[in-house]
Every structure is written in C-alpha cells, then in structure tokens.
C-alpha cells in the first residue's frame, strides 16, 4: 500500500471518529426512543430490499458487450472493407463506414502528404489510388472500420469486448498550403465506464472465473494492426504524390 493509501484510510477513520463522537453526544442529550429507532431501521431495510429492483428497472446506458458471433461478423466486415479499398469497390461500404468525403481542384502537378505525429504510430491508414481521369480533381474519403477493445479482463469480471469506434475522435485532415495535405492523429479520447459487481474480492477466495484471469488485470488486444481509420485519396495519373512516411500506390 502506498503512503497515499494509508493517508486516505486515516482520513476515513478520522471522519468516522468525528461522526461517532457526534452521534454519542447527541444520544446523551436525546435518548433515542425505541419506536422511532425501529421505524428508522425498518425504513432503511425496506429501501435496501427495494434497491436491486430499482437498479433493474432504471433505464441505464449499458455498453454492448460483443459476443463471439458479433465479433466474427465485425471482423469479416473489416476484412471486406480492407479488400474493397484496394480494389476500388468501396461504394457498397460507403453507407456504413464512410465518415466524410471531400474534393479539391489543384493547379500543381504534385502533392505532399504529411503525418503530423508519425512517431505515435499511424492511426490513419492512407491509401492512394490513381484514376484515369485527366482533370486536376483530388478526392478524399475517410473511412472508419469496426474498432473494438477486445478481451479486457478485470479481476472478477467477465471478458468485455466493446466496439468503441463511435466514441473515438476523428482525425484532423487539413491542407497546410496549396500542395500539402496534413493528417493529424485523432486527439486522445478519455473513455470511462462503471463496472458493478457483487464479488467482494478484497476479503476472500473467489469465484473460479476470476482465477483464470488472475495474472491479467487488464489486457487489451487491439483489433488488427492498423488504427481505426483509412483515408482513401484518389488522384489523377498526371499528379505525383510524395510522402516522407512512404506510400502504397495502387492503380
């Protein structure tokens, strides 16, 4: 236990001590009548008995925990999107995965792609396609795939798989000047969940399920290798594309 932990316990004990002293001094002056005492205890007990029902009935925003079947489906969708991106057949996925789309006329014969924070690891997979069109129109499409946090093992909790794609921040894509397209990693998003459980692991033994995952407190296996976003840029053949990070150019 850290020093801070001990301090918090001491603080707690101090509060309890003060409250107990307060109640004692109160009870000296005012001896609690047996009847109100019984009513108070009965009231508290009744509230506690009703509490689980209230918890069950109240509408709460619950995280959708993915089943194996759901995961497989999402994984398949991701694979199909990945293939479609390289085969120029994304039209059928636009409805589900397209986040936004833009186009831009440029006069120059070359463009530069720049990642703002390449050291953080690419969260946006950039794919450049060359089109046969002779215009100077560049189009960009930002896709996001199913991205979920898989296999979080909290002690005494089941495995939790959550599709978090809807809650993530989007990457920022801007034109720095006439020829430089800048892709900035999405800002970090803080996700906070409440986990409830009857397992009192602090005092005991526990359930066999928790023993399995005892060594793994929190384990996150991120989905696939790349980040949650793809940026598909389509450029006419006569325009050259440069990037310091390297590019995969497909016809």
């Amino acid at each position, binding site marked *: 236990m850290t020093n801070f932990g001990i301090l918090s316990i001491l603080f707690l004990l101090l509060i309890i001590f003060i409250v107990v002293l307060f109640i004692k001094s109160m009870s000296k002056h005012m001896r609690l009548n047996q009847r109100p005492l019984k009513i108070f205890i009965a009231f508290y007990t009744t*509230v506690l008995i009703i509490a689980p029902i209230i918890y069950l009935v109240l509408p709460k925003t619950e995280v959708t925990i993915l089943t194996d079947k759901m995961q497989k489906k999402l994984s398949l969708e991701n694979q199909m999107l990945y293939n479609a991106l390289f085969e120029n057949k994304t039209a059928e996925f636009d409805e589900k995965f397209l986040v936004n789309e833009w186009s831009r006329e440029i006069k120059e014969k070359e463009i530069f792609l720049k990642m703002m924070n390449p050291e953080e690891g690419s969260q946006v997979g950039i794919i450049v396609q060359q089109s046969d069109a002779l215009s100077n129109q560049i189009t960009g499409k930002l896709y996001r795939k199913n991205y979920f946090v898989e296999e979080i093992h909290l002690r005494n909790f089941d495995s939790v798989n959550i599709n978090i794609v809807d809650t993530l921040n989007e990457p920022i894509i801007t034109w720095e000047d006439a020829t430089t397209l800048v892709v900035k990693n999405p800002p*970090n998003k803080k996700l906070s969940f409440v986990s409830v459980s009857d397992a009192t692991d602090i005092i005991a033994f526990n359930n066999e399920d928790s023993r399995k995952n005892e060594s793994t407190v929190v384990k996150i296996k991120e989905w696939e290798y790349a980040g949650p976003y793809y940026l598909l840029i389509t450029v006419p053949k006569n325009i050259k594309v440069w990037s310091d990070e390297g590019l995969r150019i497909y016809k």
Partner: protein
Amino acid sequence: MTLTTKAIKNQIKLKLTVHADMLVYLIVLQIIGMILFAFSGSGSMGRGSVNFSLKFIIYSPAGLFMLSALWIFYVAITLTRKETRREILPYIRTPKINSITDIIILIYMSAFLTFTIMLSNYLLYAILILFTKKEFVEGMTIFNEPKVFFINTVAVFIVSMVIAAIGYLIGTLIQISKLFILVFIALFIGYNSSKLSMFIVNYFYEQNPTFFPFAIFNIVIITFCLFIANVIGSRMEVKGT
C-alpha cells in the same frame, strides 16, 4: 420449552433492545461509505492507447465492508465491557447463558451487516444511474450471476463473524487487564511484519482456490476465538459473584 431456552430467548430479546441503537451506527457508517464511494468507487482500472484511454470505475461491496468491519469489531468489544454487562446484570442468571446470548447477538449483528452491505451496493448503483450519465458494464450482479451473490453473501458473513470473534476475544482479555491493549498493539505490528501474515493473507484471503478451504479456515478461527473468550469470560463471572 425448557427454562434455559426460555431464559436464552428472553435475554436475546433484552440484549437486542439494549444494543438496537448500534444498528443505527452501522446505518450511518454505511451512508457515509456510500457517499464516499459514490465518487470514487471501490477501485479503478485503466489502460491507454494512442487514441483513447480507458478507465473502469469498479463498484463492489468491498469498500463498504471495510467500514462495516470496524463497526462489528466495535460491537464485539462493547458486548464484553463491564459497563454493558452491569447494565443487564440483574437479568443474567448464569455466565453460560450470557455467553450463548452474546454469540447469538454477534451472529444477528453480522447477519444484519451482511444483508445491508450486499444490498446497499445496489442502492449505490441506483444513485449512480440517477445522478451520473456513465455507461455501465454489468459485472456479476444478483440478476445475471445469482451464485456469485449468494456465495459472496456467505463469505461476507463469515469474515464479519471472524472480526466479531476476534473483537470479542480481545474485549474479554482487556477486561482482565488493560495491559492487554499494549500486547495487542505489539502483536498487530509483529504480525503485520511477519512472514506468517504474508502466508495467511496470501493463501486464505487472496489466492484461495475455492470457497471451502476459505470457509473452513475462518470457521476454525471463529470457534477458537469464541471458545477461548467464553472460558475466560465464565471465570471472570465466577470471580465476580
């Protein structure tokens, strides 16, 4: 109904009435606990990545149990105090009956503690749902894992009985001589820094593979403490009369 059972029954009734205000202390403690844990939970776990950081605030009855354990310890010590005994002395006939009723009272108090702890957690959840907009990951609750609820209820009861029994023994010994307070402080410090405590905590309270070794170990402690306390207690009563 024999005379002894009648005496026991009447004494339990009497003692419950005398100690009923103790339950109010427990309720107040639990309300304080609920307010404190509503903000922070009993624990939290998290992990970060490049584009997200994940935090799970965990709510379990463990935190409230820590607070309530202090209460049951206090109750057990109070039962052995000379002042408390003197208050109900006119109604006590034999030390044996007194010991039996004390144990029944401790069982009753532990049961009330267990019941309130396991359910007050749900009151806390309900408050969280009403006043925060956090997303829930349902762990093991009475509705989806009733087995976990019941097994933990029994575990909380057993552990609170252990604390009560230790408190009762300590209280009885302190009645013999106040010097025992010093002995207990020394034992507490010694125990905490010894390898024995590491073994007990590690094996019986953290890594215990199944419920039964845990339960048996604790029941042995309860029986041992209550037995020793009763032997000492009955001798004290004899001396007193």
